[in-house]
Protein backbone atom coordinates (compact mmCIF):
# COMPACT_ATOMS: atom_id res chain seq x y z
CA UNK A 1 0.00 0.00 0.00
CA UNK A 2 2.81 2.37 0.92
CA UNK A 3 4.41 1.40 -2.27
CA UNK A 4 1.29 2.42 -4.14
CA UNK A 5 1.06 5.75 -2.40
CA UNK A 6 4.70 6.46 -3.09
CA UNK A 7 4.08 5.67 -6.71
CA UNK A 8 1.13 8.03 -6.56
CA UNK A 9 3.31 10.93 -5.50
CA UNK A 10 5.98 10.17 -8.03
CA UNK A 11 3.47 9.79 -10.83
CA UNK A 12 1.73 13.00 -9.87
CA UNK A 13 5.02 14.84 -9.94
CA UNK A 14 5.84 13.44 -13.38
CA UNK A 15 2.37 14.32 -14.53
CA UNK A 16 2.92 17.86 -13.39
CA UNK A 17 6.07 18.15 -15.44
CA UNK A 18 4.26 16.88 -18.53
CA UNK A 19 1.44 19.26 -17.74
CA UNK A 20 3.83 22.18 -17.71
CA UNK A 21 5.23 21.20 -21.10
CA UNK A 22 1.69 20.80 -22.40
CA UNK A 23 0.84 24.24 -21.05
CA UNK A 24 3.89 25.58 -22.80
CA UNK A 25 2.56 24.33 -26.15
CA UNK A 26 -0.89 25.60 -25.38
CA UNK A 27 0.28 29.14 -24.64
CA UNK A 28 1.66 29.41 -28.16
CA UNK A 29 -0.77 27.27 -30.07
CA UNK A 30 -3.93 28.95 -28.93
CA UNK A 31 -3.18 32.52 -29.96
CA UNK A 32 -1.09 31.74 -33.03
CA UNK A 33 -1.90 28.26 -34.25
CA UNK A 34 1.82 27.56 -34.32
CA UNK A 35 2.99 24.32 -32.82
CA UNK A 36 6.35 24.79 -31.24
CA UNK A 37 8.37 21.63 -31.62
CA UNK A 38 11.20 23.32 -29.77
CA UNK A 39 9.54 23.43 -26.32
CA UNK A 40 11.54 20.40 -25.26
CA UNK A 41 14.72 22.18 -26.20
CA UNK A 42 13.65 25.18 -24.15
CA UNK A 43 13.29 22.87 -21.16
CA UNK A 44 16.74 21.55 -21.90
CA UNK A 45 18.25 25.03 -22.09
CA UNK A 46 16.76 25.88 -18.73
CA UNK A 47 18.04 22.65 -17.25
CA UNK A 48 21.54 23.55 -18.36
CA UNK A 49 21.01 27.04 -17.05
CA UNK A 50 20.16 25.42 -13.76
CA UNK A 51 23.30 23.35 -13.95
CA UNK A 52 25.52 26.35 -14.53
CA UNK A 53 23.91 28.66 -11.99
CA UNK A 54 23.01 26.19 -9.28
CA UNK A 55 25.66 23.48 -9.57
CA UNK A 56 28.69 25.20 -11.00
CA UNK A 57 28.19 28.64 -9.48
CA UNK A 58 26.30 27.35 -6.46
CA UNK A 59 23.91 30.24 -6.35
CA UNK A 60 21.03 29.96 -3.89
CA UNK A 61 18.09 28.12 -5.41
CA UNK A 62 15.59 30.96 -5.65
CA UNK A 63 18.17 33.27 -7.21
CA UNK A 64 19.23 30.70 -9.73
CA UNK A 65 15.65 29.87 -10.55
CA UNK A 66 14.69 33.48 -11.14
CA UNK A 67 17.72 34.05 -13.34
CA UNK A 68 17.01 30.96 -15.40
CA UNK A 69 13.37 31.85 -15.86
CA UNK A 70 14.30 35.41 -16.74
CA UNK A 71 16.70 34.07 -19.31
CA UNK A 72 13.98 31.83 -20.71
CA UNK A 73 11.64 34.81 -21.03
CA UNK A 74 14.24 36.51 -23.20
CA UNK A 75 14.92 33.40 -25.23
CA UNK A 76 11.23 32.90 -25.89
CA UNK A 77 10.83 36.51 -26.88
CA UNK A 78 13.89 36.35 -29.14
CA UNK A 79 12.78 33.13 -30.80
CA UNK A 80 9.47 34.67 -31.73
CA UNK A 81 10.97 37.90 -32.89
CA UNK A 82 13.61 36.30 -35.10
CA UNK A 83 12.10 33.16 -36.48
CA UNK A 84 8.35 33.38 -36.21
CA UNK A 85 7.27 36.98 -36.54
CA UNK A 86 8.77 37.51 -40.02
CA UNK A 87 6.85 34.49 -41.22
CA UNK A 88 3.54 35.39 -39.63
CA UNK A 89 3.74 38.90 -41.00
CA UNK A 90 4.69 37.71 -44.45
CA UNK A 91 1.62 35.55 -44.54
CA UNK A 92 3.67 32.41 -44.98
CA UNK A 93 1.81 29.09 -45.00
CA UNK A 94 0.97 27.66 -41.61
CA UNK A 95 3.66 25.05 -41.91
CA UNK A 96 6.49 27.57 -42.19
CA UNK A 97 6.85 28.69 -38.56
CA UNK A 98 6.63 25.09 -37.46
CA UNK A 99 9.48 24.14 -39.76
CA UNK A 100 11.53 27.13 -38.67
CA UNK A 101 11.06 26.10 -35.05
CA UNK A 102 12.10 22.58 -35.96
CA UNK A 103 15.32 24.05 -37.31
CA UNK A 104 15.72 26.00 -34.07
CA UNK A 105 15.24 22.79 -32.14
CA UNK A 106 18.33 21.37 -33.81
CA UNK A 107 20.27 24.62 -33.38
CA UNK A 108 19.53 24.80 -29.63
CA UNK A 109 20.45 21.19 -29.16
CA UNK A 110 23.69 21.40 -31.05
CA UNK A 111 24.75 24.61 -29.35
CA UNK A 112 24.29 23.01 -25.96
CA UNK A 113 26.04 19.87 -27.11
CA UNK A 114 28.93 21.99 -28.35
CA UNK A 115 29.09 23.91 -25.12
CA UNK A 116 28.64 21.17 -22.60
CA UNK A 117 29.49 17.93 -24.32
CA UNK A 118 27.46 14.76 -24.48
CA UNK A 119 27.48 13.80 -20.80
CA UNK A 120 24.56 14.40 -18.46
CA UNK A 121 25.09 17.19 -15.95
CA UNK A 122 23.64 17.31 -12.46
CA UNK A 123 21.11 19.89 -11.37
CA UNK A 124 20.32 20.21 -7.70
CA UNK A 125 16.76 19.82 -6.43
CA UNK A 126 15.03 22.68 -4.62
CA UNK A 127 15.15 21.41 -1.09
CA UNK A 128 17.79 18.77 -1.23
CA UNK A 129 17.34 15.07 -1.50
CA UNK A 130 15.19 14.51 1.54
CA UNK A 131 11.80 12.91 1.80
CA UNK A 132 8.62 14.21 3.20
CA UNK A 133 5.91 12.24 4.89
CA UNK A 134 2.43 13.68 5.07
CA UNK A 135 0.41 11.11 6.85
CA UNK A 136 0.04 8.23 4.47
CA UNK A 137 1.47 10.05 1.49
CA UNK A 138 5.23 10.12 1.11
CA UNK A 139 7.60 11.25 -1.52
CA UNK A 140 10.75 13.21 -2.16
CA UNK A 141 10.86 16.91 -1.36
CA UNK A 142 11.37 17.56 -5.02
CA UNK A 143 8.21 15.71 -5.94
CA UNK A 144 6.13 17.80 -3.58
CA UNK A 145 7.85 20.92 -4.75
CA UNK A 146 7.05 20.09 -8.34
CA UNK A 147 3.42 19.48 -7.51
CA UNK A 148 3.13 22.68 -5.51
CA UNK A 149 4.80 24.80 -8.19
CA UNK A 150 2.75 23.28 -10.99
CA UNK A 151 -0.54 23.81 -9.21
CA UNK A 152 0.43 27.42 -8.54
CA UNK A 153 1.39 27.99 -12.15
CA UNK A 154 -1.86 26.51 -13.37
CA UNK A 155 -3.86 28.51 -10.88
CA UNK A 156 -2.09 31.69 -11.99
CA UNK A 157 -2.59 30.88 -15.64
CA UNK A 158 -6.24 30.09 -15.12
CA UNK A 159 -6.66 33.36 -13.27
CA UNK A 160 -4.83 35.21 -16.01
CA UNK A 161 -7.05 33.89 -18.75
CA UNK A 162 -10.32 34.02 -16.90
CA UNK A 163 -10.11 37.19 -14.89
CA UNK A 164 -7.64 39.63 -16.38
CA UNK A 165 -8.17 41.81 -19.40
CA UNK A 166 -4.80 40.83 -20.84
CA UNK A 167 -5.74 37.20 -20.57
CA UNK A 168 -9.05 37.85 -22.27
CA UNK A 169 -7.21 39.46 -25.14
CA UNK A 170 -5.22 36.24 -25.52
CA UNK A 171 -8.47 34.33 -25.70
CA UNK A 172 -9.79 36.74 -28.28
CA UNK A 173 -6.76 36.22 -30.45
CA UNK A 174 -7.11 32.49 -30.04
CA UNK A 175 -10.68 32.58 -31.24
CA UNK A 176 -10.23 34.91 -34.18
CA UNK A 177 -6.98 36.69 -34.97
CA UNK A 178 -8.41 39.10 -37.44
CA UNK A 179 -11.35 40.12 -35.35
CA UNK A 180 -9.08 40.63 -32.38
CA UNK A 181 -6.79 42.87 -34.42
CA UNK A 182 -9.79 44.83 -35.60
CA UNK A 183 -10.81 45.31 -32.01
CA UNK A 184 -7.50 46.95 -31.33
CA UNK A 185 -5.71 44.11 -29.65
CA UNK A 186 -2.00 44.35 -30.29
CA UNK A 187 -1.30 41.08 -32.07
CA UNK A 188 2.44 41.51 -31.94
CA UNK A 189 2.45 41.99 -28.22
CA UNK A 190 0.20 39.02 -27.62
CA UNK A 191 2.36 36.79 -29.79
CA UNK A 192 5.59 37.93 -28.14
CA UNK A 193 4.14 37.43 -24.68
CA UNK A 194 2.78 34.05 -25.65
CA UNK A 195 6.21 32.88 -26.74
CA UNK A 196 7.98 34.40 -23.80
CA UNK A 197 5.50 32.93 -21.34
CA UNK A 198 5.67 29.58 -23.04
CA UNK A 199 9.46 29.55 -22.75
CA UNK A 200 9.27 30.38 -19.06
CA UNK A 201 6.84 27.53 -18.41
CA UNK A 202 8.90 25.11 -20.48
CA UNK A 203 12.00 26.26 -18.65
CA UNK A 204 10.31 25.68 -15.34
CA UNK A 205 9.54 22.14 -16.40
CA UNK A 206 13.15 21.62 -17.37
CA UNK A 207 14.60 22.85 -14.11
CA UNK A 208 12.07 20.91 -12.06
CA UNK A 209 12.59 17.61 -13.80
CA UNK A 210 16.34 17.70 -14.20
CA UNK A 211 17.33 16.78 -10.65
CA UNK A 212 15.80 13.41 -11.38
CA UNK A 213 17.02 12.89 -14.90
CA UNK A 214 20.07 15.20 -15.13
CA UNK A 215 20.52 17.85 -17.76
CA UNK A 216 21.34 16.22 -21.03
CA UNK A 217 21.44 17.63 -24.52
CA UNK A 218 19.09 14.94 -25.82
CA UNK A 219 16.44 15.37 -23.13
CA UNK A 220 14.36 17.74 -25.19
CA UNK A 221 12.56 15.59 -27.70
CA UNK A 222 11.21 12.87 -25.37
CA UNK A 223 9.91 15.61 -23.10
CA UNK A 224 8.36 17.38 -26.07
CA UNK A 225 6.59 14.21 -27.13
CA UNK A 226 5.33 13.51 -23.64
CA UNK A 227 4.15 17.09 -23.31
CA UNK A 228 2.36 16.97 -26.61
CA UNK A 229 0.73 13.66 -25.72
CA UNK A 230 -0.53 15.24 -22.52
CA UNK A 231 -1.90 18.13 -24.56
CA UNK A 232 -3.71 15.88 -26.99
CA UNK A 233 -5.19 13.77 -24.21
CA UNK A 234 -6.39 16.73 -22.23
CA UNK A 235 -7.57 18.80 -25.15
CA UNK A 236 -6.06 21.91 -26.64
CA UNK A 237 -8.99 24.09 -25.74
CA UNK A 238 -8.56 24.43 -22.01
CA UNK A 239 -5.73 25.16 -19.64
CA UNK A 240 -7.05 22.54 -17.20
CA UNK A 241 -6.82 20.03 -20.04
CA UNK A 242 -3.03 20.25 -19.98
CA UNK A 243 -3.00 19.33 -16.30
CA UNK A 244 -5.48 16.51 -16.74
CA UNK A 245 -3.61 15.16 -19.73
CA UNK A 246 -0.29 15.28 -17.96
CA UNK A 247 -1.60 13.38 -14.97
CA UNK A 248 -3.35 10.74 -17.06
CA UNK A 249 -0.22 10.20 -19.11
CA UNK A 250 2.08 9.95 -16.11
CA UNK A 251 -0.22 7.57 -14.32
CA UNK A 252 -0.61 5.37 -17.37
CA UNK A 253 3.16 5.32 -17.77
CA UNK A 254 4.15 4.64 -14.19
CA UNK A 255 1.48 2.09 -13.47
CA UNK A 256 2.31 0.20 -16.64
CA UNK A 257 5.97 0.08 -15.67
CA UNK A 258 5.21 -1.03 -12.14
CA UNK A 259 2.38 -3.45 -12.52
CA UNK A 260 2.16 -4.63 -16.10
CA UNK A 261 4.16 -7.67 -17.13
CA UNK A 262 6.17 -5.88 -19.80
CA UNK A 263 9.88 -5.09 -19.85
CA UNK A 264 10.61 -1.54 -18.63
CA UNK A 265 12.00 -0.49 -21.99
CA UNK A 266 8.63 -1.06 -23.57
CA UNK A 267 7.09 1.29 -21.02
CA UNK A 268 8.72 4.06 -23.00
CA UNK A 269 6.26 3.13 -25.68
CA UNK A 270 3.26 3.99 -23.51
CA UNK A 271 3.14 7.71 -24.26
CA UNK A 272 3.72 6.95 -27.92
CA UNK A 273 0.91 4.46 -28.16
CA UNK A 274 -1.41 6.72 -26.19
CA UNK A 275 -0.58 9.61 -28.49
CA UNK A 276 -1.30 7.61 -31.61
CA UNK A 277 -4.54 6.25 -30.17
CA UNK A 278 -5.77 9.67 -29.12
CA UNK A 279 -4.79 11.31 -32.40
CA UNK A 280 -6.74 8.72 -34.29
CA UNK A 281 -9.75 8.37 -32.07
CA UNK A 282 -10.15 11.54 -30.07
CA UNK A 283 -7.88 14.27 -31.40
CA UNK A 284 -9.77 17.01 -29.64
CA UNK A 285 -8.90 15.52 -26.28
CA UNK A 286 -10.99 14.84 -23.26
CA UNK A 287 -11.96 18.35 -22.25
CA UNK A 288 -13.89 20.48 -24.69
CA UNK A 289 -12.92 24.04 -25.31
CA UNK A 290 -15.32 26.46 -23.77
CA UNK A 291 -18.04 27.57 -26.15
CA UNK A 292 -17.55 31.10 -27.42
CA UNK A 293 -19.54 33.35 -25.17
CA UNK A 294 -22.13 35.57 -26.89
Amino acid sequence: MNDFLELLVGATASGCVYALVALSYLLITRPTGVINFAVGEWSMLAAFGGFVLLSRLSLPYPVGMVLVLGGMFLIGWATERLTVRPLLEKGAPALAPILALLGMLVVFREVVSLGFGPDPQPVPPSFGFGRLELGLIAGSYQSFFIIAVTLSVFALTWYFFERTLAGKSFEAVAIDRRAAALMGINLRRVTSLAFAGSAVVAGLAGVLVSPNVSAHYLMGLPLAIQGFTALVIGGVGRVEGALLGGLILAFAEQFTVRYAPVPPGLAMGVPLVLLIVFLLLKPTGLLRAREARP
Partner: protein
Amino acid sequence: MRQWIVLAIAALVLSAIGFALGAYQTDVYRKLLLWITLALGYNFLFGISGQVAFSHFTFYGIGAYAIVILLFQVGLPLPLAVLVGIALCVVLALIVAIPATRLEGFYLALATLAFAQLFIVVLNEGGAVTGAAGGLANYRLPDVFGMRVTGPWYTVVIVLLLLSTWTILWRLDRSYFGRACRAVRDDPEAARAMGVNVAHTKIIAYTVTSALAGMAGMVYAFVDNTVNPLIFGLENVFLLLFMVIVGGSGRHAGAVVGAVLLYLLPLVLSPLIGHHHALVFGVFMVVVVLFQPKGLIGLWDMLRKRGGRA
Protein backbone atom coordinates in the same frame (compact mmCIF):
# COMPACT_ATOMS: atom_id res chain seq x y z
CA MET B 1 11.80 5.24 -76.20
CA ARG B 2 13.84 8.30 -75.43
CA GLN B 3 13.20 7.83 -71.75
CA TRP B 4 14.75 4.38 -71.84
CA ILE B 5 17.84 5.65 -73.59
CA VAL B 6 18.34 8.39 -71.03
CA LEU B 7 17.83 5.95 -68.19
CA ALA B 8 20.24 3.46 -69.69
CA ILE B 9 22.92 6.11 -70.08
CA ALA B 10 22.35 7.31 -66.54
CA ALA B 11 22.64 3.76 -65.26
CA LEU B 12 25.89 3.23 -67.12
CA VAL B 13 27.44 6.49 -66.01
CA LEU B 14 26.42 6.18 -62.38
CA SER B 15 27.61 2.59 -62.25
CA ALA B 16 30.87 3.41 -63.97
CA ILE B 17 31.61 5.97 -61.29
CA GLY B 18 31.23 3.19 -58.77
CA PHE B 19 33.90 1.17 -60.49
CA ALA B 20 36.31 4.05 -60.51
CA LEU B 21 36.21 4.78 -56.80
CA GLY B 22 38.35 3.55 -53.94
CA ALA B 23 36.94 1.82 -50.89
CA TYR B 24 36.16 4.85 -48.69
CA GLN B 25 34.80 6.85 -51.60
CA THR B 26 32.60 3.92 -52.62
CA ASP B 27 30.99 3.93 -49.18
CA VAL B 28 30.27 7.65 -49.42
CA TYR B 29 28.97 7.29 -52.96
CA ARG B 30 26.64 4.42 -52.12
CA LYS B 31 25.18 6.20 -49.15
CA LEU B 32 24.78 9.34 -51.21
CA LEU B 33 22.81 7.41 -53.81
CA LEU B 34 20.62 5.95 -51.07
CA TRP B 35 19.98 9.35 -49.53
CA ILE B 36 19.01 10.71 -52.93
CA THR B 37 16.59 7.80 -53.32
CA LEU B 38 15.06 8.52 -49.93
CA ALA B 39 14.89 12.24 -50.57
CA LEU B 40 13.07 11.71 -53.87
CA GLY B 41 10.43 9.60 -52.17
CA TYR B 42 10.08 11.93 -49.23
CA ASN B 43 9.82 14.91 -51.53
CA PHE B 44 6.86 13.26 -53.23
CA LEU B 45 5.14 12.53 -49.94
CA PHE B 46 5.91 15.81 -48.21
CA GLY B 47 6.39 18.27 -51.03
CA ILE B 48 4.05 17.06 -53.75
CA SER B 49 1.38 15.27 -51.79
CA GLY B 50 1.63 17.72 -48.90
CA GLN B 51 1.62 15.12 -46.14
CA VAL B 52 3.76 16.18 -43.20
CA ALA B 53 4.87 12.74 -42.11
CA PHE B 54 7.94 11.59 -40.23
CA SER B 55 7.55 7.95 -41.00
CA HIS B 56 9.56 7.77 -44.21
CA PHE B 57 12.82 6.85 -42.56
CA THR B 58 11.03 4.36 -40.36
CA PHE B 59 9.92 2.40 -43.39
CA TYR B 60 13.54 2.47 -44.52
CA GLY B 61 14.39 0.77 -41.25
CA ILE B 62 11.52 -1.66 -41.50
CA GLY B 63 12.73 -2.75 -44.92
CA ALA B 64 16.30 -3.14 -43.72
CA TYR B 65 15.43 -5.20 -40.67
CA ALA B 66 12.85 -7.20 -42.59
CA ILE B 67 15.23 -8.48 -45.24
CA VAL B 68 17.86 -9.43 -42.66
CA ILE B 69 15.33 -11.23 -40.49
CA LEU B 70 13.75 -13.00 -43.44
CA LEU B 71 17.08 -14.19 -44.77
CA PHE B 72 18.91 -15.12 -41.61
CA GLN B 73 16.26 -15.94 -39.05
CA VAL B 74 13.39 -17.23 -41.09
CA GLY B 75 15.89 -18.72 -43.50
CA LEU B 76 14.22 -17.89 -46.79
CA PRO B 77 16.19 -18.15 -50.01
CA LEU B 78 17.15 -14.77 -51.45
CA PRO B 79 14.56 -14.40 -54.24
CA LEU B 80 11.73 -15.37 -51.92
CA ALA B 81 13.04 -13.13 -49.16
CA VAL B 82 13.12 -10.21 -51.56
CA LEU B 83 9.58 -10.83 -52.73
CA VAL B 84 8.23 -11.31 -49.23
CA GLY B 85 10.16 -8.24 -48.12
CA ILE B 86 8.62 -6.10 -50.83
CA ALA B 87 5.16 -7.44 -50.08
CA LEU B 88 5.68 -6.74 -46.39
CA CYS B 89 6.73 -3.17 -47.11
CA VAL B 90 3.70 -2.55 -49.27
CA VAL B 91 1.22 -4.14 -46.88
CA LEU B 92 2.63 -2.39 -43.84
CA ALA B 93 2.69 0.92 -45.68
CA LEU B 94 -0.95 0.46 -46.60
CA ILE B 95 -1.93 -0.47 -43.06
CA VAL B 96 -0.29 2.66 -41.69
CA ALA B 97 -1.55 4.81 -44.57
CA ILE B 98 -5.21 4.21 -43.94
CA PRO B 99 -5.43 5.78 -40.49
CA ALA B 100 -2.52 8.16 -41.08
CA THR B 101 -4.06 9.89 -44.07
CA ARG B 102 -7.12 10.76 -42.05
CA LEU B 103 -4.96 13.07 -39.97
CA GLU B 104 -4.19 16.59 -41.01
CA GLY B 105 -1.03 18.65 -40.84
CA PHE B 106 0.42 18.65 -37.41
CA TYR B 107 -1.55 15.69 -36.13
CA LEU B 108 -0.10 13.57 -38.90
CA ALA B 109 3.37 14.85 -38.08
CA LEU B 110 3.02 13.93 -34.43
CA ALA B 111 1.44 10.57 -35.05
CA THR B 112 4.19 9.59 -37.47
CA LEU B 113 6.83 10.94 -35.10
CA ALA B 114 5.38 8.74 -32.40
CA PHE B 115 5.35 5.86 -34.84
CA ALA B 116 9.02 6.47 -35.61
CA GLN B 117 9.88 6.48 -31.91
CA LEU B 118 7.78 3.40 -31.32
CA PHE B 119 9.77 1.57 -33.98
CA ILE B 120 12.97 2.33 -32.09
CA VAL B 121 11.43 1.14 -28.84
CA VAL B 122 10.34 -2.10 -30.48
CA LEU B 123 13.81 -2.59 -31.95
CA ASN B 124 15.44 -2.02 -28.60
CA GLU B 125 13.15 -4.45 -26.88
CA GLY B 126 13.07 -6.99 -29.66
CA GLY B 127 15.46 -9.41 -28.02
CA ALA B 128 17.06 -11.89 -30.32
CA VAL B 129 14.80 -11.11 -33.24
CA THR B 130 15.96 -7.55 -33.71
CA GLY B 131 19.24 -7.86 -31.89
CA ALA B 132 18.02 -5.29 -29.35
CA ALA B 133 20.19 -2.23 -28.87
CA GLY B 134 23.15 -3.74 -30.63
CA GLY B 135 21.20 -4.62 -33.70
CA LEU B 136 22.05 -7.30 -36.20
CA ALA B 137 25.45 -7.68 -37.80
CA ASN B 138 27.89 -10.17 -39.18
CA TYR B 139 25.85 -11.20 -42.14
CA ARG B 140 26.33 -10.74 -45.81
CA LEU B 141 24.31 -10.90 -48.98
CA PRO B 142 23.89 -14.51 -50.06
CA ASP B 143 25.34 -15.47 -53.40
CA VAL B 144 23.17 -14.86 -56.43
CA PHE B 145 23.41 -17.73 -58.88
CA GLY B 146 26.57 -18.77 -57.11
CA MET B 147 28.19 -15.35 -57.51
CA ARG B 148 29.03 -12.91 -54.81
CA VAL B 149 27.56 -9.50 -55.52
CA THR B 150 29.96 -7.19 -53.86
CA GLY B 151 31.93 -4.02 -54.29
CA PRO B 152 31.09 -1.97 -57.36
CA TRP B 153 28.60 -4.62 -58.48
CA TYR B 154 26.49 -3.93 -55.44
CA THR B 155 26.76 -0.25 -56.26
CA VAL B 156 25.07 -1.13 -59.54
CA VAL B 157 22.17 -2.54 -57.52
CA ILE B 158 21.87 0.76 -55.68
CA VAL B 159 22.02 2.68 -58.95
CA LEU B 160 19.18 0.57 -60.31
CA LEU B 161 17.18 1.20 -57.14
CA LEU B 162 17.69 4.93 -57.48
CA LEU B 163 16.74 5.00 -61.14
CA SER B 164 13.63 2.86 -60.65
CA THR B 165 12.51 5.06 -57.77
CA TRP B 166 13.12 8.14 -59.89
CA THR B 167 11.21 6.71 -62.84
CA ILE B 168 8.22 5.66 -60.76
CA LEU B 169 7.95 9.00 -59.00
CA TRP B 170 8.59 11.03 -62.13
CA ARG B 171 5.90 9.22 -64.06
CA LEU B 172 3.42 9.47 -61.22
CA ASP B 173 4.13 13.17 -60.90
CA ARG B 174 3.67 13.85 -64.59
CA SER B 175 0.28 12.23 -64.74
CA TYR B 176 -3.24 12.91 -63.58
CA PHE B 177 -2.20 11.38 -60.28
CA GLY B 178 0.58 13.89 -59.67
CA ARG B 179 -1.82 16.72 -60.38
CA ALA B 180 -4.37 15.15 -58.09
CA CYS B 181 -1.78 14.98 -55.29
CA ARG B 182 -0.92 18.65 -55.72
CA ALA B 183 -4.59 19.58 -55.93
CA VAL B 184 -5.27 17.76 -52.68
CA ARG B 185 -2.32 19.55 -51.12
CA ASP B 186 -3.42 22.98 -52.32
CA ASP B 187 -7.16 22.76 -51.74
CA PRO B 188 -8.86 19.49 -50.83
CA GLU B 189 -12.35 20.91 -51.12
CA ALA B 190 -11.76 22.13 -54.65
CA ALA B 191 -10.05 18.86 -55.50
CA ARG B 192 -13.13 16.99 -54.38
CA ALA B 193 -15.31 19.18 -56.55
CA MET B 194 -13.12 18.22 -59.50
CA GLY B 195 -13.75 14.55 -58.85
CA VAL B 196 -10.55 13.71 -56.98
CA ASN B 197 -11.01 11.05 -54.32
CA VAL B 198 -8.97 12.82 -51.69
CA ALA B 199 -8.67 9.92 -49.28
CA HIS B 200 -7.59 7.45 -51.96
CA THR B 201 -5.08 9.86 -53.43
CA LYS B 202 -3.43 10.40 -50.07
CA ILE B 203 -3.40 6.71 -49.28
CA ILE B 204 -1.81 5.81 -52.59
CA ALA B 205 0.82 8.53 -52.27
CA TYR B 206 1.66 7.47 -48.74
CA THR B 207 1.74 3.77 -49.55
CA VAL B 208 3.84 4.08 -52.69
CA THR B 209 6.43 6.37 -51.14
CA SER B 210 6.65 4.39 -47.90
CA ALA B 211 6.96 1.11 -49.77
CA LEU B 212 9.74 2.62 -51.91
CA ALA B 213 11.52 3.67 -48.73
CA GLY B 214 11.16 0.13 -47.43
CA MET B 215 12.70 -1.28 -50.57
CA ALA B 216 15.56 1.16 -50.30
CA GLY B 217 16.03 -0.14 -46.78
CA MET B 218 16.27 -3.67 -48.06
CA VAL B 219 19.11 -2.60 -50.32
CA TYR B 220 20.74 -0.60 -47.52
CA ALA B 221 20.96 -3.65 -45.27
CA PHE B 222 23.91 -4.93 -47.26
CA VAL B 223 25.83 -1.69 -47.54
CA ASP B 224 27.23 -1.70 -44.03
CA ASN B 225 26.12 -5.23 -43.31
CA THR B 226 24.75 -4.03 -40.02
CA VAL B 227 21.42 -2.67 -38.84
CA ASN B 228 20.84 -1.13 -35.45
CA PRO B 229 18.33 1.24 -33.80
CA LEU B 230 20.70 4.21 -33.82
CA ILE B 231 20.73 4.41 -37.60
CA PHE B 232 16.98 4.83 -37.80
CA GLY B 233 16.63 7.39 -35.04
CA LEU B 234 15.22 10.87 -35.18
CA GLU B 235 18.50 12.47 -36.24
CA ASN B 236 18.16 11.03 -39.69
CA VAL B 237 14.42 11.59 -39.79
CA PHE B 238 14.99 15.31 -39.39
CA LEU B 239 17.94 15.26 -41.77
CA LEU B 240 15.71 13.90 -44.52
CA LEU B 241 13.19 16.67 -43.91
CA PHE B 242 15.94 19.27 -43.99
CA MET B 243 17.31 17.87 -47.25
CA VAL B 244 13.98 18.19 -48.96
CA ILE B 245 13.28 21.67 -47.69
CA VAL B 246 16.73 23.13 -48.22
CA GLY B 247 16.87 21.65 -51.69
CA GLY B 248 13.41 22.79 -52.64
CA SER B 249 10.26 21.07 -51.52
CA GLY B 250 8.03 19.77 -54.29
CA ARG B 251 10.74 19.50 -56.91
CA HIS B 252 12.57 16.31 -57.79
CA ALA B 253 15.69 18.30 -58.61
CA GLY B 254 15.36 19.95 -55.22
CA ALA B 255 15.42 16.61 -53.49
CA VAL B 256 18.59 15.66 -55.34
CA VAL B 257 20.31 18.97 -54.59
CA GLY B 258 19.30 18.85 -50.94
CA ALA B 259 20.47 15.29 -50.50
CA VAL B 260 23.81 15.91 -52.17
CA LEU B 261 24.45 19.10 -50.24
CA LEU B 262 23.42 17.93 -46.80
CA TYR B 263 25.08 14.56 -47.13
CA LEU B 264 28.40 15.73 -48.50
CA LEU B 265 28.67 18.94 -46.50
CA PRO B 266 29.42 17.28 -43.15
CA LEU B 267 32.19 15.31 -44.76
CA VAL B 268 33.71 18.47 -46.11
CA LEU B 269 33.16 20.44 -42.92
CA SER B 270 34.15 17.78 -40.45
CA PRO B 271 37.67 19.07 -39.97
CA LEU B 272 36.09 22.35 -38.87
CA ILE B 273 33.09 21.44 -36.79
CA GLY B 274 33.46 17.77 -36.07
CA HIS B 275 30.21 16.02 -35.34
CA HIS B 276 28.18 19.15 -35.00
CA HIS B 277 27.11 19.41 -38.59
CA ALA B 278 23.56 19.21 -37.39
CA LEU B 279 24.02 22.77 -36.19
CA VAL B 280 24.72 23.87 -39.73
CA PHE B 281 21.65 22.03 -40.97
CA GLY B 282 19.47 23.62 -38.35
CA VAL B 283 20.72 27.04 -39.35
CA PHE B 284 20.25 26.26 -43.06
CA MET B 285 16.74 25.12 -42.31
CA VAL B 286 15.82 28.31 -40.49
CA VAL B 287 17.46 30.49 -43.13
CA VAL B 288 15.74 28.71 -45.99
CA VAL B 289 12.33 28.81 -44.35
CA LEU B 290 12.70 32.49 -43.55
CA PHE B 291 14.28 33.78 -46.71
CA GLN B 292 13.94 31.31 -49.54
CA PRO B 293 11.05 28.95 -48.93
CA LYS B 294 11.40 27.53 -52.41
CA GLY B 295 14.78 26.17 -51.42
CA LEU B 296 18.00 26.19 -53.39
CA ILE B 297 16.20 25.12 -56.53
CA GLY B 298 13.94 28.12 -56.13
CA LEU B 299 17.01 30.30 -55.84
CA TRP B 300 18.42 28.77 -59.00
CA ASP B 301 15.18 29.44 -60.87
CA MET B 302 15.17 33.04 -59.73
CA LEU B 303 18.75 33.58 -60.83
CA ARG B 304 18.00 32.02 -64.19
CA LYS B 305 15.03 34.28 -64.73
CA ARG B 306 17.07 37.34 -63.83
CA GLY B 307 19.84 36.21 -66.12
CA GLY B 308 17.33 35.79 -68.93
CA ARG B 309 16.06 39.32 -68.54
CA ALA B 310 19.53 40.92 -68.43
